[in-house]
């Protein structure tokens, strides 16, 4: 079924020219409170880790597509005449758009625009002493792809630490999405550790991911962060604290903890047209999350200002 106001969207007809690709669900799986959605997408062009796509369920009741980080990507099988990528997304249902997508069944259609935006700069991460992934809830989404890319990079980071904060044990089941990239890194000889913490305390340690970070942070770390805005700010505060305490080291590194944050904003177009997705960044200007971001460096996004009260993290 397709809405009258969505007519020229999904379906079997040839709708070229179009930037909107026709995805077909090849796998849909519930993981705790999240959903792993894999789409087979002819015409997809390979994504950078940290980029996102605008998705809309076929016959959606929503007017606008929604933004999702690219979670995993499998290139076309050698013999595939359609040369279709298989692209995975990790979804947390929080409203109508995410609910629709999480209810899609294998074979259902979804409109896709992407990959879009500016992702993580692999060059700045691959040679790192240690890459620390800090994720809250569904903020885990972009990191399996990033880890795969780091595994394939050269040089590889010397070590990887994944710190995951979850609300509770059910949400924490999402840790499984890291199994494959983590084993791969380990097989490749990159020591990789995963630690979890949850607010409810019904799995592993009780608390916020920033507590883990505070204990773990070292001078040679490069951070990649994704989660609720308040969590991102709190992470940055930890970085600033660290900087204060280890001023000499920091000065060498240009007085900056090298940390990159994948940030969120409500979007309409995802392609820089509408100017709807701006956030105020450190220099006081408004930056489009869909173009300059979603990945911003900590200094760029938050500057050296500290956040008066780092709220406990909400829904990731």
């Amino acid at each position, binding site marked *: 079924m397709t809405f009258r106001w969505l007519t020229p969207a999904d379906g079997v007809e040839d709708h070229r020219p179009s930037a909107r690709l026709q995805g077909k669900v090849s796998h849909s799986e519930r993981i705790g409170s999240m959903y792993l959605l894999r789409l087979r997408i002819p015409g997809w062009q390979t994504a950078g880790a940290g980029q996102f796509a605008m998705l809309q369920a076929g016959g959606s009741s929503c007017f606008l597509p929604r933004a999702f980080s690219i979670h995993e990507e499998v290139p076309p099988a050698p013999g595939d005449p359609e040369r279709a990528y298989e692209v995975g997304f990790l979804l947390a249902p929080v409203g109508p758009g995410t609910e629709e997508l999480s209810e899609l069944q294998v074979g259902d259609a979804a409109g896709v625009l992407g990959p879009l935006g500016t992702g993580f700069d692999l060059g700045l991460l691959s040679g790192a002493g240690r890459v620390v992934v800090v994720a809250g809830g569904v903020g885990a989404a972009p990191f399996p792809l990033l880890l795969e890319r780091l595994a394939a990079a050269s040089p590889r980071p010397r070590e990887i630490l994944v710190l995951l904060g979850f609300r509770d044990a059910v949400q924490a089941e999402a840790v499984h999405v890291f199994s494959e990239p983590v084993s791969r890194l380990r097989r490749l000889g990159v020591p990789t550790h995963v630690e979890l913490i949850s607010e409810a305390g019904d799995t592993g340690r009780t608390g916020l991911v920033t507590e883990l970070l505070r204990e773990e942070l070292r001078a040679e770390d490069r951070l990649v962060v994704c989660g609720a805005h308040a969590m991102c700010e709190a992470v940055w505060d930890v970085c600033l604290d660290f900087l204060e305490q280890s001023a000499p080291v920091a000065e060498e590194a240009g007085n900056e903890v090298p940390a990159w944050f994948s940030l969120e904003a*409500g979007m*309409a177009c995802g392609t820089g*047209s509408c100017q709807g997705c701006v956030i105020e960044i450190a220099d006081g200007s408004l930056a489009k999350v869909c173009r300059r971001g979603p990945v911003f460096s900590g200094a760029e996004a938050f500057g050296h200002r500290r956040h008066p009260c780092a709220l406990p993290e909400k829904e990731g």
Partner: protein
Amino acid sequence: MTPSLDVDLTVRLGPLVLAHPLINASGTLDLFETADSLGAGRGEQLLQDPPVAAYVPKTVTLDPRRGNPPPRVVETPAGMLNSIGLPNAGLEAFVERDLDRILALPRPVIFNLGGFAPEEFALGTERLRLALEQRLGSPRAVWEKAGLELNVSCPNVHSGCMQIGASADETEATVRGVAAVWEGLLAVKLTPNVTDAVPVAQAAVEAGATAISLVNTFKGLVLDRLTLSPYLGGITGGLSGPAIKPLALRFCWEVAAAVDVPIIGMGGVASVEDVVDYLAVGASAVAVGASAFRDPWLYARLARELESELAHRGSTLADLTGCAHRGGVVGL
């Protein structure tokens, strides 16, 4: 896109010749940003063969504007509310940074100028005309490449843009000042947030407008679900998308019956049926706004579907245009 021309879709808006009636609504398509977003292949294609019959850049104002604080967009039933607030680098920066690449597009351009007092519009127009003449040579070359749309109807700036468009007198004053320095297509973009748009349209035409664009967005409010305070940074916003289509179509229907200049119809266009409806009530060109957020090639697809629709009905674009005022067509 140039559709395969079995059916003649050519539209004339004053001195501008459009290959088909589908254009973008101002503020909803930035071809250059989109091209960059889409990456090398599709991005180049977008600039080399833009999907719009004419390109309408976002509103530029004399002075730079930051725009409204975020959040700026939110979805509503069958539509969206925006409170972008006309952020732009100002006309001078626009001329310096953007004008050349816009003029390099293989399409006519309809510049969109905003302002908060009649004089601002005249000043801006003069500046733009000068810049265009410098680049295109003769005035004639300018008028064949460039039209102008006056945004006197933005509901998202609190310094008075929409107040101009809500008043026939102020609109008349604004248009008169601009018409004195602009001989090309001069469209005035009206607000639907008025008791009656007809007197405003008539005043605009009286003062020298050679086209009427309508509608801009409808002022609306969405609350934050949790805090129950206004959700958008700009408090209120402008509603667009399919939700407003019956309302916008009514404005076009009334204004098309009352003035004798071409109409650029818009508001909620999402499908070829919508395009046909706007043409039928008298629009010469049809602009797509928020619905193209789903796909920046939507304009071109609609143009192609319009072609099929006309072929199917066995009627010409001229037959279709304004037919609702002539008792409709049977066709089909």
